[in-house]
């Protein structure tokens, strides 16, 4: 894997019509396709790099097992199959976060989930503050329409919430967090569902 297609796509979109958005529609579609091809190629490169970094040295006689990493390029329309499905089959979701800047960052990241009882831990198994926010009807409508338009598929399951949790990532480095289903009895460890207030009527 390499980033040649991404380099080509970025070179082409330096054209003044692409920068200003004054290109013809079919040209805009061509730019978008080239960027998408470049992104998919770069995603493979990142996945293989992360697999290499997360691999532990196998003891003698054991097979080296590479971990498969996925990204969510359509997270902007709240479509992220790894986070939506991982918790439904009893597995935990590992989120690896890379910081491309030269200073430590403390931010909140967002992933769509279907489960309303989840817990988030850092790599030292410390519980992390997390908050669930219901996906609005407008967001779900947008997601459904654009997934059909871009991917030609109708996703079977709809996520119910955004899971927001705070992360700390070192400069030019990465952190990992584990999202898992919380035990029914383990109320203290699960994420907090947002309280909702509406100003309409007399509420």
């Amino acid at each position: 894997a390499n980033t040649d297609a991404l380099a080509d796509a970025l070179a082409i979109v330096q054209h003044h019509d692409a920068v200003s958005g004054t290109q013809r529609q079919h040209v805009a579609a061509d730019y978008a396709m080239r960027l998408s091809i470049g992104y998919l190629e770069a995603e493979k490169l990142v996945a293989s790099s992360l697999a290499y970094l997360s691999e532990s040295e196998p003891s003698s006689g054991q097979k080296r097992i590479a971990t498969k990493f996925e990204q969510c390029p359509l997270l902007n329309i709240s479509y992220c199959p790894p986070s939506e499905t991982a918790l439904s089959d009893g597995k935990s979701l590992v989120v690896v976060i890379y910081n491309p800047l030269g200073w430590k960052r403390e931010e909140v990241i967002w992933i769509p989930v279907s489960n309303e009882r989840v817990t988030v831990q850092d790599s030292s198994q410390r519980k992390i503050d997390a908050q669930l926010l219901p996906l609005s009807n407008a967001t779900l409508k947008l997601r459904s329409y654009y997934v059909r338009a871009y991917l030609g598929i109708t996703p079977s399951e709809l996520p119910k919430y955004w899971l927001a949790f705070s992360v700390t990532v070192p400069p030019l480095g990465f952190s990992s967090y584990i999202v898992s289903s919380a035990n029914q009895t383990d109320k203290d460890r699960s994420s907090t569902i947002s309280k909702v207030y509406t100003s309409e009527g007399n509420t």
Partner: protein
Amino acid sequence: NKTIQVGQGSLKLLYSAEGKLARYINSRNMVTAVAEQSYSYYTGNDGTDKDPQASGAYVFRPNGTVVIKSEEKVSLTVMRGPLLDEVHQQINPWVSQITRLYKGKEHAEVEFTIGPIPVDDGIGKEITTQLTTAMKTNKTFYTDSNGRDFIKRIRDFRTDWDLQVNQPIAGNYYPINLGIYVQDSTTELSVLVDRAVGGSSLVDGQVELMLHRRLTHDDIRGVGEILNETVCVSEKCEGLTIQGKFYVRIDPVGEGSKWRRTAGQEISAPLLLAFTEQEGNDWM
């Protein structure tokens, strides 16, 4: 009693009972400001009658200077939790926004969703939002230069030649790739963006951003097609819906530049997420 307060850290936003933003308060640096927000649209020039130049991809040329206000009463939903507070507002059937205040952060994040812009009345529309304060900015504002240094802009004025103002709105619009700010003797209002938009300060104390456009005529300036983006499912097409974010902060004068530099880089270099699975407690 008649306002809704949002925010858990030092930054608080106050909304009126009608659901409109009214005040910005930062208890750490003692900034308190009247702050309002509205959405409007400019109607595109259709290039008929006596004026043959239509609004198009290249040409921003609002039909007169009429700004059509959004609906008066806005429904407001607030979500509160340990990390952030969110304010959901449906401005009209095709404009909505979510304002987020993160605990520990001193800026407001506004996520707008606009579209499909209706054009079945045959009129092109260019959608803008205005952030209004009481700051006395004396016709002056600052916009980035293609993501780099902020350059001083003065309304209806150019340093290098005598400007004849034919387009009081478009003639004062600038491209915004990183952000725009205004300041007076005590405070500065900074707005950073996550995407290229148009922007200006057409009224003292106000910042305006153009967020989405859908037009119905070609401007005959070379592109040869109408700026009318659509997205199709099973050969049924509708106007493009866009979603983006801008970030707002008010600082004592002279203290906003650090945030504009660091936050600007963080917006254009977001954290990269990669996902994998593990069995129960089989720690990787």
